């Protein structure tokens, strides 16, 4: 039996679980590839990850090296493609190193907040009764505070630093996810397929994690990607107030905050990191849209 890889992947009736899995990943990839914008988003993010990984090789200068004689150099200055900031540091190098911090913040928040929200929302929605009331009022309390103010309070209590900033942002970001997850859960918990698995003797934990979570993830992914820009900016805001990334650190938001002082005379100091944030959030949005199409059970897979 000699079958080519293409035939093996395109087989209408796979013979094993692994073949079925590879085949559905392959078809998902083909479908995803057809969405040019989502592919663009994915490429931008892959580039960002590579830049962050190889930052020391890619950056022309030390991001912390100051040169006050050459401060606020304009774009295209010899040796400084994106110019220099108020302390004469190379903006391009700072951007490249800053991508590490951005990825770190976004990655950790995206890992903590949606998972916590998903867990609280689905448990509240599925179990209902007083569990629902307690968890949702708890969520309401978090929702009632302005996000940045609450994050400020957390950082003030936990101490300044990028880890605590991440934790504070995650703690303020989960309530919308809990709301979405609960709404999704309420709409599916009475459905026949949930009843059917109950009739097989499945417990609440299995139903929530195996049957409800997969259906909530599509809408959460969309929400996460929409939140990414806000998360980067919230981290920047905390840095600006001296509660997130500390001054020498090349965090993009802190760079904008620093350049804010000379925005009229030396616009690029704030604009270049702003464009970087814009491109990365756009990439997240495009990717999120593509993923949503892919995760949607009604359109997913080849038909």
């Amino acid at each position, binding site marked *: 039996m000699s079958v080519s890889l293409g035939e093996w992947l395109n087989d*209408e*009736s*796979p*013979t094993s*679980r692994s073949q*079925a899995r590879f*085949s*559905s990943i392959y078809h998902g990839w083909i479908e995803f590839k057809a969405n040019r914008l989502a592919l663009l988003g994915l490429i931008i993010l892959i580039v960002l990850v590579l830049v962050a990984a190889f930052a020391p090789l890619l950056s022309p200068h030390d991001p912390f090296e100051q040169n006050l004689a050459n401060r606020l150099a304009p774009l295209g200055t010899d040796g400084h493609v994106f110019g220099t900031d108020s302390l004469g540091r190379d903006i391009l190098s700072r951007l490249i190193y800053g991508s590490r911090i951005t990825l770190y913040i976004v990655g950790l928040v995206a890992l903590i907040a949606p998972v916590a929200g998903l867990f609280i929302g689905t448990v509240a929605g599925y179990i209902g009764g007083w569990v629902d009331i307690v968890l949702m009022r708890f969520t309401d309390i978090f929702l009632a505070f302005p996000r940045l103010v609450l994050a400020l309070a957390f950082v003030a209590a936990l101490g300044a630093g990028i880890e605590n900033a991440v934790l504070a942002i995650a703690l303020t970001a989960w309530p919308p996810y809990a709301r979405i997850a609960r709404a999704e859960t309420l709409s599916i918990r009475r*459905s*026949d*397929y949930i*009843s*059917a*698995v*109950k*009739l*097989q*003797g*499945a417990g609440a934990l299995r139903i929530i994690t*195996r*049957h409800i979570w*997969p*259906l909530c993830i599509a809408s959460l992914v969309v929400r996460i990607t929409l939140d990414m820009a806000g998360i980067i900016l919230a981290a920047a805001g905390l840095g600006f107030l001296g509660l997130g990334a500390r001054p020498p650190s090349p965090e993009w938001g802190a760079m904008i905050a620093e350049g804010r002082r000379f925005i009229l005379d030396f616009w690029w100091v704030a604009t270049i990191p702003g464009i970087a944030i814009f491109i990365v959030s756009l990439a997240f949005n495009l990717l999120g849209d593509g993923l949503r199409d892919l995760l949607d*059970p*009604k359109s*997913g*897979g080849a*038909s």
Partner: protein
Amino acid sequence: MSDVQGIDIADLNVWFGQGPERVDAVQSVSFTVDKGASVGLVGESGSGKSTILRAITGLAGSWSGSMMVGGEKLGRKRSKAFYNKVQMVFQDPYASLHPRHSVDQVLSETLSLHGLKDIDRRIIKLLDDVGLGTAFRFRYPHQLSGGQRQRVAIARALASEPSILLLDEPTSALDVSVQAEILNLLSDLRDERGLTYLMVSHNLAVVGHLCESVLVMQNGQIVELLSIEDLRAQQASHPYTQQLLKSSLGFVRDVPRQT
């Protein structure tokens, strides 16, 4: 005395909500289904047919009365052993399968929940039994037709090798030609495995095909028990049943048909 291995329901009341919002869906219903028998439950929409099935499986709201099913007296909670003996097929195959689980996932999860070994072999056998074949094993529900979905749902219900199958209008969401296939499948499966059926339907022809006797329900109560012969002969004593039988004949015109 009824056979204890079948279904014996006495004075069952089922209600939803409390206080002024309370709705009594089923009121003092008693009936028995002997082991190996096949009984239909007919009546109009909202007469409480499906609620009885849901009460038996523990999915319905509050109930009182006594239920003996498969030799087990039912309490508030259903045991794992109960779900081994009693399974249900739902009305709408488009709603009863998880949209993101493949046929293989549905069946293997069911089998492992029942603590059965040798899952691969059993899945192939189950698919074969319901006439699907292994080609459908890794398909997702959106890649299946309504009839194929209902076959998967039947396979899932049969996975734990139950002795009692509760059928909640298993064919009403399907088109007519597929209905016949599913009914034949159900009737073959019953012959092979000696299953006990309790089937809800509003379609008398479907009940007539699969059942030996029929319980007629109206407004949450059982008004009559008919044998299938009486049903065919249109011999009903209760006025509601007579009306139901008359309407099942379809729209009768007095004008002779033109050709």
